[in-house]
């Protein structure tokens, strides 16, 4: 058992934490959200300079060769600042997919731009009318035609879909689910974006006989569901870490507020009922922190069943903790907690979104119970 960080990991965590503290105060964040793509290109460029966009890629591909722990450290730091840049979609989701399944040729084309912060990629998998969180029962189809593929279907809730240059799209083929690399501005592709309640962007993407070159398939035909499973597990682990960063900052803000806010002539932090509530928030934070760590170290497990059970367990805990901490932070702040002018409400909303993404706590509890429980 070794819960220490390597010197390199410690440095990485500190660097990103410091960067967020320096550059991502709440007012700056409000500015970034209002910039045209929905986030700050300048911040993104600095992420590139810090090497954060290279995290999941092998060293021979120009990457950092990092694993779950490094991603955990970065996401936790990003969580503290409620960072809205498309790190989860481009680096964690699509980066993992590329690292896992891209051919050397595909990597050579895509990775330099991605790592340099020039190329943004989004994962287009979920569908509004498919069984929720299915990996396989989607309707989008890829039909082979004269050495091309034609894509038809509708994807929904594509994270950062409208700023993406490229899309990784899942579709049914006669050999099973396959993934395709598609240019977001290609013929037959329509992207309609909208803001999300947590200060980000989301898109519906429609494919109408959109032609895709044969060499744009990512991984083997029929391998799509397996790749998606790994990619989503990696994203869940990353989200649990982001949530821990948010909860940490939220609890800090809340206790600070209770110390400074006075009513009835005393700091409201002197009220025992509120103190005990904060202790319960701390307990939820520490349980969540443990499960973020559990998720990070579970990613390399070879046994797919165990890995998926562990990831579900982490998502359950993060959902429970995030809801409690988010709701209570708002409640303890009183009216100021429900204004958009103060960070705590945004933290609450992002925690809500994190629970919703890739299956909420209840969904994963069903899945885990179906699998018989942990180990």
């Amino acid at each position: 058992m070794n819960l220490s960080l390597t010197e390199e990991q410690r440095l990485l965590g500190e660097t990103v934490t410091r960067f967020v503290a320096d550059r991502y105060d709440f007012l700056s964040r409000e500015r970034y959200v209002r910039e045209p793509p929905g986030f700050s290109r300048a911040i993104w460029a600095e992420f590139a300079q810090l090497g954060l966009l290279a995290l999941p890629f092998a060293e021979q591909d120009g990457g950092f060769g990092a694993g779950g722990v490094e991603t955990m450290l970065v996401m936790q730091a990003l969580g503290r600042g409620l960072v809205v840049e498309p790190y989860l979609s481009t680096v964690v989701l699509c980066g993992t997919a590329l690292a896992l399944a891209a051919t050397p040729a595909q990597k050579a084309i895509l990775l330099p731009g991605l790592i340099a912060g020039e190329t943004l990629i989004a994962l287009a998998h979920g569908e509004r009318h498919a069984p929720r969180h299915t990996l396989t029962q989607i309707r989008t189809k890829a039909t082979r035609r004269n050495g091309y593929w034609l894509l038809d279907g509708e994807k929904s809730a594509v994270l950062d879909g409208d700023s993406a240059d490229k899309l990784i799209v899942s579709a049914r083929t006669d050999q099973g689910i396959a993934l395709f690399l598609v240019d977001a501005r290609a013929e037959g592709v329509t992207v309609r974006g909208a803001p999300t309640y947590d200060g980000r962007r989301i898109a519906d993407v429609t494919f109408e006989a959109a032609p895709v070159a044969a060499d744009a398939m990512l991984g083997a035909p029929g391998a799509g569901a397996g790749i998606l499973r790994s990619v989503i597990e990696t994203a869940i682990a990353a989200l649990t870490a982001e949530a821990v960063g948010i909860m940490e900052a939220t609890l800090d803000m809340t206790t600070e507020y209770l110390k400074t806010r006075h009513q009835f002539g005393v700091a409201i932090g002197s009220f025992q009922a509120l103190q005990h509530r904060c202790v319960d928030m701390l307990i939820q934070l520490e349980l969540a922190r443990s499960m973020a760590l559990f998720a990070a170290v579970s990613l390399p497990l070879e046994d797919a069943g165990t890995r998926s059970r562990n990831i579900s367990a982490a998502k359950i805990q993060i959902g429970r903790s995030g809801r409690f901490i988010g709701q209570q932070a708002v409640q303890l702040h009183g009216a100021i907690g429900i204004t958009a002018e103060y960070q705590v409400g945004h933290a609450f909303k992002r925690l809500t979104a994190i629970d919703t993404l890739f299956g909420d706590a209840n969904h994963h509890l069903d899945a885990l119970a179906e699998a018989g429980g942990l180990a």
Partner: protein
Amino acid sequence: MNLSFTPEEQAFRNEVRAFLRDYLPDDLRQKMLERRHLGKEDLVRWQRILNARGWATPAWPVDYGGQSWTPAQRYIFQEEMALGRAPEPSPFNVNMIGPVLCKFGTDAQKQRFLTRIANLDDWWCQGFSEPGAGSDLASLKTRAVRDGDHYVVTGQKIWTTQAQHADWMFALVRTDPAAKPQRGISFLLIDMASPGITVRPIETIDGERDANEVFFDAVRVPSENLIGEENKGWDYAKALLGHERSGIARVGLSKERVLRVKEIEALLAESGVFSPADQARVRRRRVELEVELKALEITQLRVVAADSQAGHGTGANSAASILKIKGTELQQALTEMVVELAGPEGLAMRPEAHGANAPLADGWIEAAAPYYFNMRKVSIFGGSNEIQRNIVAKTVLGL
């Protein structure tokens, strides 16, 4: 002993239901069904329809346009309004300033304001909370200094709901800074068009801008706009807050949400979005809330019955104190369920709140999370649930 309504009460229920079927505009019903945000025009339109029917201000004294309804009728009316998906009339006009004027206003004040209040010709807002005086209302600092036949008001109110629409504000202001905190406060009616008033909207986490800061810079208010006696404002405010308890648990609203959840469950099951396991899980949770809601409903009915027939104890007094706490907890729990039902597509904001791109989905899915966020306020405003528990501990349990 029974929980059924009398044939007369049932007939009244049918009358309300028929009225809503015939007169509630479809677009309003649809907005309420989806829990989308209602604009000023929506609320004014509906208030005037109600007023034309004589039902805008049923709890007011009959002489001032009220109805001589029993507590059970008031309960039924509120429940049917909620189940029929009718907008709630402005509480500031109907439940607050109207009753205060009826009870404490001068004849001139009644004459001038009451019919306009009932018809929403004047839109009222409530100027109580201040920065630093939320739950601890008695520590408010906005000053009103007498200057001839005017008060000169200087200070700031905050969280003033719908001040951006308001023609008038009823406000608590400090007229005697030397008196004990609750003594030197007066109750003033302030014309929002007066020079020196600035309204700054505050965006809330549901993306709306219905909360406001209101700044007063030497605003001159005629002394005829004082309610009752100077420095007695705290008494009028207390009377206003304890005005009506037949609807305090808002059971009808939660019942309507349960019906809505059932509809959505069916929708998701039918469309294949929800697996049988999803369906079973959500149904079990919904039924859990249904049971709590039934318990809350009967607790509310016990209070209604006690109000109808004082002296027949079924523990109703202590029951009344808990309706607000449990009622808000249930309302909030039901909004959580709708967020779960909405799933990841529910991340998208309603475009009308942002003037952004075209809608990704209609209706309920995109309204789910904003309504959830919005409803966090119900356990904060009007005396937070923590304050409510302090009150119950002291007054009911004697702790």
